[in-house]
């Protein structure tokens, strides 16, 4: 019982909050109302059973509780205003979604979820605030959970969330889906925030910080909702595919000792086939639309890796071609770095080093790790050792550090 209640909460919290924000015109009121409805559910459902449409039940209960509360507190003018809004909204307080037109209800709820995504990821908010708000309001995560996942004190995270909500409130942010002209920029912000949540959980896969891997699961869940809500946006599908294909490799990213394993050294039999299959289908579906974007191209690159039975059999020419396309639309040094690595596999380490020489990323750990690997393969051991040392200096992740130190020892040993 407790488990399924938890599952319902995970699935429904964001949707219910999204609808309640529209009904109440206030984020805090909506959060309080949804929390109250879940408390009531915890008392009633174990006795009466889970209702057929738990989301609608939570939404209705939360709305009724909010109306009661607003009537009680109507002496405060702002709350009175909210109470007024509540009644004048298109969703009448007496409307019972469990008996009325459920399809219409589902459509409205879907729009609410999109509104909430665009609100949480408003470009006027800093990226860390977007991420925190998205996890809090759409993911229904507790502030303490989000703080743990991002390794910051709970008070810091609470303050971040309060400030972000306050900024939206003080600026009179509207709860709406962006117009077509604004959509590309606004959607890019939403996709960026979801991917940031994913990578935050992904980078920390050491087996020691399990709470952080939950972030990846949450990012995939939100990404899946977005791809479903915006079926005409290939980049939303591309992001989901990229996350699934990356997630498929998770079981092989760490060895039995908890040490990081490079993509080319991974035991591919450990990759999760079901995720690869789903990711593949999505990549094919979005590429058919022929509106390539950065997430679709990165997903396509991940799909080429997933396709390959072994590292040796990797179609590097395909990967280099995809990186060329990616660089054409996103000419940034990290793309150039990844392209140079692929060139190193396609045409040999010397050509890879030439490509790397044109990349300026001195303060970036992966740059030095990639350079070290290319130098080692080119037989330039002393320079490779120096590059590993520089990479180790720049990493703050213990798993990465252990991996780099092991690589450095390996080439130092082979020198003897």
């Amino acid at each position, binding site marked *: 019982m407790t488990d399924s209640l938890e599952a319902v909460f995970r699935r429904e919290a964001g949707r219910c909050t999204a609808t309640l924000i529209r009904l109440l015109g206030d984020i805090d009121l909506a959060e309080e109302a949804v929390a109250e409805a879940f408390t009531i559910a915890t008392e009633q459902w174990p006795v009466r059973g889970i209702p057929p449409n738990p989301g609608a039940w939570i939404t209705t209960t939360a709305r009724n509780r909010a109306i009661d509360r607003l009537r009680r507190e109507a002496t405060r003018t702002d709350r009175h205003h909210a109470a007024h809004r509540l009644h004048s909204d298109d969703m009448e307080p007496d409307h019972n979604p469990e008996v009325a037109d459920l399809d219409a209800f589902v459509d409205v709820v879907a729009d609410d979820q999109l509104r909430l995504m665009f609100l949480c990821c*408003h470009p*006027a908010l800093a990226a860390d605030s977007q991420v925190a708000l998205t996890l809090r309001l759409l993911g229904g995560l507790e502030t303490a959970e989000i703080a743990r996942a991002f390794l910051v004190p709970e008070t810091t995270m609470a303050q971040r969330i309060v400030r972000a909500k306050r900024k*939206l409130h*003080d*600026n*009179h*942010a*509207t709860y709406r889906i*962006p117009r077509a002209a*604004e959509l590309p920029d606004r959607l890019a912000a939403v996709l960026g925030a979801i991917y940031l949540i994913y990578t935050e959980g992904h980078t920390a896969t050491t087996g020691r910080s399990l709470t952080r891997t939950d972030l990846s699961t949450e990012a995939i869940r939100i990404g899946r909702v977005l791809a479903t809500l915006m079926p005409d946006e290939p980049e939303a599908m591309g992001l989901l595919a990229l996350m699934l294909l990356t997630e498929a490799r998770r079981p092989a990213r760490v060895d039995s000792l908890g040490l990081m394993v490079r993509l080319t050294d991974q035991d591919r039999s450990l990759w999760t086939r079901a995720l690869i299959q789903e990711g593949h289908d999505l990549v094919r579906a979005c590429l058919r639309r022929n509106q390539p974007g950065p997430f679709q191209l990165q997903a396509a690159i991940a799909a080429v890796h997933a396709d390959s039975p072994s590292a040796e059999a990797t179609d590097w020419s395909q990967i280099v071609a995809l990186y060329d396309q990616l660089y054409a639309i996103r000419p940034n040094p990290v793309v150039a770095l990844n392209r140079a690595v692929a060139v190193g596999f396609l045409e040999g380490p010397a050509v890879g080093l030439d490509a790397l020489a044109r990349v300026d990323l001195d303060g970036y750990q992966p740059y030095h790790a990639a350079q070290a690997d290319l130098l080692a393969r080119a037989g330039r051991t002393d320079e490779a050792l120096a590059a590993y040392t520089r990479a180790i200096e720049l990493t703050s992740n213990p798993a990465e550090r252990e991996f780099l130190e092991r690589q450095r020892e390996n080439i130092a040993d082979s020198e003897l």
Partner: protein
Amino acid sequence: MPQYLLSVWHDEDYEPDFSTPDAQRQVAQVGAFNDQLHSSGAWLFAGGLQPASSATVVRSTGGEVSMTDGPYAETKEQMGGFWVIQAPDMDAALQLGSRAAAACERPVEVRPLQG
């Protein structure tokens, strides 16, 4: 309707010189933007400021008035001008803010007024 301050920022040593082609272009752009604000009803008030070096900070402590030469904040950037506009919501205000930034070719801070 919500009101917002759009403030224009530049380096502290900025001295307006309206004879340069750059300045003349910006003046023309800002003029066109002001016309848009008037015709759309967003305009409330606006003004360009004399250089920050012309500012005086006045303090009143227990009836005692003291004056300090120069701007309040000792920062590299100072406010050089502003608009007070009204807009239906944040996105509309930010859109006007980005047009303002394009017109004067400088960063513009968009900040809601209380109330």
